């Protein structure tokens, strides 16, 4: 728990930086920042317990997507505003670097391993967002249907 606190703060500030670079409206920055930091913590925790950064990325992306959609619903704004700064912590920038380093060392098997992991992590982020997006679509259409049914009776 105590190890997670500094990580949480670091992710918080990193997301704050992204939020300013991508010009998130001032009143939405606090929410953005919390979404991003929560996503990073979800990644760390699931990486620790499941020992797989790919699953970690998936769960982190799911959490970011879910929180963003909830925030978008509450604050009546586009979900993208929360998702883009939030997801950036999860993008495997470090893996890109290590892939390249392995390539420079001429260690092709290592490069293949890390490179594949990079691709899988990026894919996992995509999957996470996709799953959440699909679920919200279903939920939204269900809500719409129940509302129209209520109107009929």
């Amino acid at each position, binding site marked *: 728990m105590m190890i997670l606190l500094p990580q949480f703060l670091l992710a918080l*500030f990193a997301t704050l930086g992204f939020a300013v670079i991508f010009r998130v409206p001032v009143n939405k920055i606090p929410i953005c920042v919390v979404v991003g930091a929560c996503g990073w913590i979800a990644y760390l925790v699931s990486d620790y317990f499941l020992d797989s950064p790919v699953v970690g990325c998936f769960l982190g992306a799911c959490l970011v997507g879910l929180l963003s959609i909830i925030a978008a619903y509450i604050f009546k704004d586009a979900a993208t505003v929360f998702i*883009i700064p939030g997801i950036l912590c999860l993008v495997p920038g470090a893996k890109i*670097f290590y892939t390249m380093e392995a390539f420079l060392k001429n260690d092709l098997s290592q490069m293949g391993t890390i490179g594949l992991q990079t691709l899988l992590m990026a894919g996992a982020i995509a999957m996470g967002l996709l799953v959440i997006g699909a679920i919200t679509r279903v939920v939204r259409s269900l809500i719409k249907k129940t509302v129209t049914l209520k109107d009929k009776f």
Partner: protein
Amino acid sequence: MDQKYKKDVLILAIKAGKIMMKSGAEIYRVEDTISRICKACGIDYVNVFATPTGIFVSIDSDGSDDTVTYIKRIKSNETDLSRISKVNQFSREFTTTDMTVEEGMKLLDEIEGRRKYPFWMRVLAAAVVTSCFSVIFGGGAIDFGVAFVTGMLCYTLSRFLEKYEINFFIRGFICTALAAFCALLAAASVEGAMYAPVITGCIMLFVPGVAITNSIRDFLSGDMLSGLARMTEAALIGISLAAGAGVVIKFWTMMGGITL
């Protein structure tokens, strides 16, 4: 409904779409905004086809002979989430209240002209991003400082190159090359400084998060073309970042600076 009015509505709608697309919105949102604005003005036939590089809109209404079509090419883009948010609000307002087209145009001009955060603030933000990530990826206090300065330099260089419309691939390459150079220089001259966390921190600054997110959201709403285009963009950016840092590190090792 006269031709002039139709044209005005079309220009307004396409301007809203252009601002959104340039700021990094998904295809679905852009198409939806354009057709909503047109429908709110009483035009019943609206067809929009948007891609990250251009928007095509065709409108028509009952009883007139001519269809009005407009093609808008979109060139440079720069992520600006507050603009997306503002245009989103604008389209909601425009469709629910009886705002005139001229008023709408004025509002959009205002949205397009506003600058949210001053340049120095964004440079500082970039520095915070790189330094935080360098610590997350195993750096110490010295690396924090080095990454802070490097982040500032890289972001400034990136903005400078963007002004001269250098394409994103070369921009990523040059920026990470600079980051790698600064990091290696610091590692060589300062005791206890590492180069890996600093370079990683700088790579995180240019990582294609927007492209990945948007490509997924485009796929989800069935815009395969834009989804693929953005996916390719993300992959190219990733490769260019790795290549930029790699070339500098390779040269440095060849000159005997470090051993990998």
